[in-house]
């Protein structure tokens, strides 16, 4: 993955203001942005996905410009071809596991039917051992199962990068260790580039190759284990 990021934003709430200025270029497949809460990690990740618009700068992914304030380019989230794993997974509660996974494959105004079989959906249900759960609803699943459904849903449309927002924060410690290793293995097997944000040093250590340390909206230091 080729990431070229240079964004600035200022947020004001009352009298306090927060300045974000994140600049980095990386060709790593495993980028981790590490820092305490309130450092601007979430804003950075949302900016890449198009869910937050920086006031200036540019974002380029694999040579494609997603955002460039100078050129007046700001692609909608729908056009960015990235996948986003939300902290609490944001699974659609009214849809089954199969419908959730197939959600992005079906365009238009209607959801895929509960019986609709798509080859690609089955492929990902198999990959994440979700076939037996295909007809269950998200509220019937455990935390680990939900995360696997969210991953399958994110990866089904061949994204250019998978963005992970504190992916293990919602899990209990024992499961966190297990899922972290599983995700690391999946990432290597599937060769999907990931950009992860976390406040957990273990996440950065195991999943991060190029680690950016973010503090008060600025990159404090960076470490690239591949270099």
């Amino acid at each position, binding site marked *: 993955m080729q990431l070229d990021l240079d964004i600035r934003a200022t947020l004001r709430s009352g009298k306090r203001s927060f300045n974000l200025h994140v600049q980095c270029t990386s060709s790593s497949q495993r980028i981790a942005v590490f820092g305490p809460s309130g450092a601007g990690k979430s804003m950075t990740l949302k900016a890449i996905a*198009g869910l937050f618009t920086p006031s200036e700068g540019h974002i380029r992914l694999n040579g494609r410009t997603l955002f460039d304030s100078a050129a007046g380019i700001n692609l909608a989230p729908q056009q960015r071809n990235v996948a*986003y794993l939300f902290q609490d997974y944001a699974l*659609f*509660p009214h849809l089954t596991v199969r419908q959730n996974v197939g959600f992005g494959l079906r365009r238009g*105004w209607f*959801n895929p039917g509960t019986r609709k079989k798509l080859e690609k959906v089955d492929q990902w249900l198999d990959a994440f051992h979700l076939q037996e759960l295909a007809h269950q609803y998200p509220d019937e699943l455990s935390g680990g199962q939900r995360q696997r459904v969210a991953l399958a849903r994110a990866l089904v*449309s061949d994204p250019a990068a998978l963005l992970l927002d504190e992916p293990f924060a919602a899990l209990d410690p024992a499961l966190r260790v297990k899922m972290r290793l599983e995700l690391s293995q999946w990432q290597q097997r599937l060769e999907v580039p990931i950009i992860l944000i976390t406040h957990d040093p273990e996440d950065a250590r195991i999943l991060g190759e190029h680690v950016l340390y973010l503090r008060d909206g600025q990159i404090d230091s960076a470490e690239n284990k591949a270099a």
Partner: protein
Amino acid sequence: MDIAWTALALSLKVAAWATALNLLLGIGTGYLLARARFPGRDLLDALLTLPMVMPPTVLGYYLLVLLGRRGTLGIWLQEHFGINLIFTWQGAVIASTVVAFPLVFKPARAAFEAVDGQLEQAARVLGISEMGIFFRVTLPLAWRGILAGVLLGFVRALGEFGATLMVAGSIPGKTQTLSVAVYEAVQAGQDDAANMLVLITSAVCIVVLLAAGRLAPGRIVHK
């Protein structure tokens, strides 16, 4: 007792039309006020809720002034379409729609506000258009709350009296709805007719409430 059945049929027709209109209007305005940020939003909300607190006769009078022969909208409708709404069943539909509107709009707005915005963001990143998100995520998740309001709005429209009488009058077989017919029967001392009408009204209301109870359960969706 033909007059009773005619009145029932008319009441159901008027309430059905009013509910259909309120379904569209209530979802539209409820969604707009739940999502859009614009100056005057609170004022608009208050204006749209006004029919709930104002006496129906006052609303009826407003409608009469607006839609009547000398009303601005009335003149415009007459000149451009040759439509006169006063003393017609369509006029009764307008009156019932206005009176029942807040009962549909308020729960719809609350239901839309209760939908987790992150789910819509997730759909956005998955490449689904804004219209697709509305029909595939937002509306299905808000649907139960909307439906509750729609049923309330239906029974409110069915029982509408004050505004309907002002706008549509009481022409038997044409604009005389159940509740108006009850009033007329009692005024005329026709106790048999009044008893019949009251029993029919009660029966219809019980059927609607039972239907509402049937519709309400189903899969309970929670996060």
